[in-house]
């Protein structure tokens, strides 16, 4: 989708700058002036956005050279670049223009203008000036105030003629020194809105953190309409307008093609049950259509024809959604395209903008129930939803109208990860039989990893994963459920022998009941970590171990139970004595995958409790 592009450009821009900065406190942005002007282009009968961006970099400790990167694409041109080094024109710096390759995107229209900017000595400054034009205001979605370097002062001025209706939505301003003023320029008949920003910290790049729309101070720019000499031009005044624009791009792509119809029937031949047919199509997509992302101009919004996706056996999210829809429709089902923003984006459709969504899936309306089918989630089951789309607003096509709804939020129970073990002690070894089961995103995760490994190594890799690559943990008689059936839970069964798992001293045996110790070392460095932590998905890990006690031994000590329960997560680990055996039960549940920083301290304390449990042994004493 085009919007994934918009978001992506933003994120790659952030990334590029962050890459350049690498938390480099040596360089600051001393002064940044950004001037944006909406103006009507009579020739194209279009509102355009002119940008003049002046950034002054200063080094504080030692001279350096920093990479400067500015993005452009089919809708954005770079009209002029000027560079001043220590106040002098630096004509020897010749910007290079090139295609920008983005990880996981096969092709996009993202290009970069880049060069190395010297800052000649401590305390000196270098200045960069870019002049850019965005040819369609729909593509001007936001202005960010932070950067890869600390910003001392930034002044952002937006010149909005009264003939153009633009809404500015301020986000993540709390706690930041940002002042806003607005003046009316009667000569231009325009409002000039100015933000003065002081002392904004350099952006942080941390794993599992919320996207920048959640954390960085910025203004969302919503261009609604323009009163032009030739009449009113409506951009995204309302969500209806946004949908109308989407619909104008997709309406002529009605999926009805002989090859698609034939293929859908071939795939479901012999199946009579509707839901089984739907599942068959969904899983066929997983197995046979590979995801390759294209983000190219208008094509970023326009799904590839289903027959083309079918022919190529690859597609981006739009193409995959379109083929899913096409095949389901061929079988007589009510399938539709959906626009959706993943949880990487803080926005929803209350602010109509192409920055709101970045993904396309297929909705199936069947017997009054709506199912969402995301063919890019390769190994997820039917009616199971990935965390990234759960609870997200979605626009379902409905002819000229649309259905505005939400993807259901799945409870943590969906992502089950269980282990059941029946173990006994033989000398200093522990032996027994284990069965494990994964569902939902846990299952998807395992399948993804297995399929990322060469076939001849995947069995070994699975066993290594189960044994935590511990050579003393031998696995035999290893069997799995079908590795091609994503509809059912993934299960494995095996026999294990954990050599030297028991320590024997004198008349006592010491047993470590938990081999895996989930989350045992998962604490946050509160001093270092800046941003909230987002788990990949909700988790629901359960472990049950029955350990037979040798007849001539009695349990003389056990770790005390651990029970932690709050709105975000629950941990429990308990051992119960039963005749001739111990029953160990552990449950680790992440109910809310978004752990805010203010709760890190509590989390760390709770993990310490878990760790204390893990680091305590069961003591068996000779009777």
């Amino acid at each position, binding site marked *: 989708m085009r919007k994934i592009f918009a978001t992506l450009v933003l994120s790659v821009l952030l990334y590029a700058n962050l890459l350049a900065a690498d938390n480099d406190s040596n360089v600051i942005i001393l002064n940044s002036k950004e001037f944006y002007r909406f103006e009507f282009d009579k020739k194209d009968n279009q509102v355009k956005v002119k940008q003049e961006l002046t950034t002054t970099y200063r080094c504080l*400790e*030692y001279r350096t050279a920093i990479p400067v990167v500015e993005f452009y694409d089919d809708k954005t041109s770079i009209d002029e670049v000027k560079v001043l080094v220590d106040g002098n024109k630096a004509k020897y710096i010749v910007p290079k223009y*090139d295609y920008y390759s983005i990880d996981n995107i096969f092709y996009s229209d993202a290009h970069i203008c880049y060069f190395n900017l010297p800052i000649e000595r401590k305390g000196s400054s270098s200045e960069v000036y870019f002049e850019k034009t965005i040819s369609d205001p729909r593509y001007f979605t936001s202005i960010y105030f932070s950067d890869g370097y600390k910003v001392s002062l930034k002044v952002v001025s937006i010149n909005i003629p009264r003939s153009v209706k633009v809404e500015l939505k301020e986000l993540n301003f709390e706690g930041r020194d940002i002042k806003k003023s607005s003046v009316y320029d009667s000569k231009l008949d325009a409002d000039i809105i100015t933000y003065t920003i002081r002392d904004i910290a350099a952006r942080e790049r941390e794993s599992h953190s919320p996207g920048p729309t959640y954390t960085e101070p910025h203004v969302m720019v919503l261009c609604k309409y323009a009163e032009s000499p030739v009449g009113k031009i409506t951009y995204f005044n309302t969500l209806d307008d946004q949908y109308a624009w989407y619909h104008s791009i997709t309406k002529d792509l009605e999926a009805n093609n002989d090859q698609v119809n034939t293929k859908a029937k071939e795939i479901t031949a012999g199946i009579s049950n509707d839901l089984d047919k739907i599942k068959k199509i969904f899983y066929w997509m997983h197995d046979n259509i*590979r995801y390759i992302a294209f983000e190219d101009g208008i094509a970023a919004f326009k799904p590839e024809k289903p027959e083309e996706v079918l022919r190529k056996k690859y597609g981006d999210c739009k193409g995959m959604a379109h083929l899913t829809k096409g095949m389901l429709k061929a079988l007589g089902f009510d399938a539709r395209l959906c626009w959706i923003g993943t949880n990487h984006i803080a926005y929803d459709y209350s602010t109509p903008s192409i920055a709101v969504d970045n993904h396309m899936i297929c909705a199936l309306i069947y017997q009054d129930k709506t199912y969402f089918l995301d063919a890019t989630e390769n190994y997820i089951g039917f009616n199971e939803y990935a965390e990234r789309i759960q609870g997200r607003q979605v626009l379902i096509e409905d002819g000229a109208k649309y259905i505005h709804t939400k993807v259901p939020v799945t409870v943590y129970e969906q992502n089950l990860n269980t282990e059941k073990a029946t173990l006994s002690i033989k000398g200093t070894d522990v032996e027994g039989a284990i069965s494990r089961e994964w569902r939902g995103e846990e299952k998807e995760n395992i399948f993804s990893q297995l399929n990322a490994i060469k076939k001849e190594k*995947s069995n070994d890799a699975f066993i290594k994963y189960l044994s935590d690559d511990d050579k*003393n943990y031998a696995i035999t008689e290893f069997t799995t459920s079908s590795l091609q059936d994503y509809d059912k839970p993934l299960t494995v069964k095996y026999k294990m022998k954990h050599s030297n798992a028991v320590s024997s001293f004198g008349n006592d045996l010491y047993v470590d009941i938990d081999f895996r110790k989930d989350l045992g070392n998962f604490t946050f460095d509160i001093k270092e970590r800046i941003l909230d932590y987002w788990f990949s998905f909700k988790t629901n890990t359960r472990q049950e171990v029955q350990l037979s006690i040798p007849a001539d031994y009695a349990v003389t*000590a056990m770790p005390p139970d651990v029970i932690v329960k709050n709105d975000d997560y629950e941990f429990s680990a308990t051992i119960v004595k039963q005749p001739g055996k111990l029953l160990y039960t552990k449950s680790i549940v992440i109910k809310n995958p978004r752990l805010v920083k203010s709760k890190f301290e509590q989390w760390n304390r709770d993990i310490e409790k878990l760790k204390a449990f893990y*680091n305590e042994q069961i*003591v068996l004493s000779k009777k």
Partner: protein
Amino acid sequence: MTKILLKTICLLLITLNASAQSKSEKNDKDYKERAIEIQQEIWNNADKAFDVKEIPEKYSSEGAVIIAKSFEVANSSQKKFKMIHLWGGSVNQYRYFTTLRLRVLIKDKTALDDFSTLNYSKIVDNTARIRFYKLVNTYKTFIGARIIKPDGKVSSFNPEEEEVILKNEDKNKEGKIAIPDLQVGDILDYYIRIEEVIEDQSKVRGPNLFFLGDEYPILYYNVKYNLDKKCGADVINLNGAKPMIQSVNEEGDIVLQFTERDLQKLKNTLWTSQARQVPYHVVRYGFPGTDIIAKKGEVKTGPFTETYKDLLKAAYRDSRIVDHMPEKALEEYFGRSKVKNLPPDSIVNFLFNYYHWYEFGSFNTMNVSNDRNYNGMRYFYMAVTFSELLKRIYNIENDIVIVCNRYSGRLNEVFGIGDFETFVRVTGGGKLTWLCFNDFFQNAGQLASVYQGEDAFTLTREGRGRKHDYTDAETPIKLPVMKSSENVLVEKLKVSFGKDNFQLINIDRTCTQTGAMKTSDQKRLMLSEDVEGGFAYLLNKQKATDMLAKNRANKQQALEIQAALDKERVKQKDYFKSEINDQFGQEPKELLSYKVVNNALSVANPVFEYNETFTMENFVKKAGNNYIFDVGKLMGVYKKAEEKERTRTLDIYMSCGRELTYNFAITVPEGYNLKGVEELNKKVENEIATFNATAKQSENILNVTVTRTYKNNFEPAANWPKLLTVMDAAADFTGMKVLLEKSK
């Protein structure tokens, strides 16, 4: 007049534009026509190996099988008449056609990802134009692919319709293709043809290396060169690869070819030297005037050891010292009058350190990271100038030693001059015999481990005059191998249990390393500022930053460099943390102190030593009123070999013979008794390796000493089981525990 001029210019511009447009269209048309010709040529190729659809049962579990792979090169040259400036003249036009064709059965998603996209430079036009003179230099890539479905249906596509153009300049087009209709279970048959036309400049092509193995099994592998009769080629086959077949075709062109069938995939194996163990071919070729051994129309089969030795010798013969700073520095250090009477070792050591200091460089830019520690030295240049300096100025007898690194080809298998490395052997008295320039952390007198046990040539300078020649020994010398006792690691760990938390242990760890055991940690733990300062100290010179600061003109720069160095110094804590993490498989809870005690840059003090104090979790488990201490984990992470690694046919190339000793002094907390000490004692010994663990409690201290010795740097594969017994014992030890039992 102005109007006429304007009109003329406009007309000219329009004409030029139209001409450029039509030329571009013609280029596109030519490209398309050529693409069709190539496609027909390749798909009509009669090589039956590319028709195969079945694979042997033994490869049924592989993720992909290369059914057929071919690499073909054809070249030609011809004279062409061209306008050169305002005169006519002839130039040589060289054409090179290179074709890679691959037919692969895709059996899993990883292979599907590997083979599903192609990136390529479609057209590169580096043609140079100087006034009326044009030198053609173009490069075009043509690709094609077809897919054979499991039911035998063939699906093909037009690359131009599928490709996306990443760069679309007249002279530089880059494309990318996602291959359509490709699925697991399909056979992908594709080719890449590169056609180059170059005028009046011909460079040596290659060396092209052809390893007889890949990450997937290969059923058929064919390499063929069809070289113009005016061309020459050098070839070599190594490690059991059969020689290439040489012939001449009807046109008198040279044909070189090899065909292999059923090649097993290459596996990652511990302690190997692939350049000496995997069969492969090397080919390079070129027209007269290029840097190859073969003459026009000739194929020369390597090795070319003698030839390149002679070339190196000739280059060295022409070499002269131009920098006399080392001599001046020596005089300043010892005093001019005393230099004459200095023992050879003093001179050799000082100059060796000087060379290292000089080559390591000062800090004129803000490039201050310890990446510099990993830089190589210019050993070809260093060896010859160092040798000349010793002999001509100080009359210290020495040889230049020419050797091959243990991890490259052997001395008697040299194919290019780059296969050689050089250093100096002092023969004129003193103890400092070996002076190696392969990295900054070899001490004077220390023979680098990568050369040990290798055959080597020596070049001895004749006389002390500026004009000189070298005598080379008729037979190679055998370089010695250092004893394991010269490559030593000793780790001393003082361990105590936290006063308030028994499960948090305090570790005071001191590591000392000698010989080949030290360079890795020297590089990762030392700051480049300290390395530079260390060398400067040995020469009684000021540190680079002090020298800079003294220069008034550079004072500001010096301050800034120091600021950059100070910032780099903060990172040293992370270097130590990372080392602890690698050693123990977990980060310290807290790193309390860390320091390099001795940098080991001096031959007089060659033991690298560092110390760190830190706290660690997860070593102690509570057990009722008692505690179990994972004492074996103090030795660090040591994984047992997997079942499939327990048999091997490849000989064993270890970095060096070595002795590793771990001393743990564990303070037993008051009120607790130790149990399980006896079980820590274990000894495994054979003629090539030993493992020995001893433990004894003395008052409240448990002393554990663990040694692991590998006697040699090389073992035949047959000795693998013996090594495994020691490796297993070490791995088992890491699981050892003792009980801290509460006194009753």
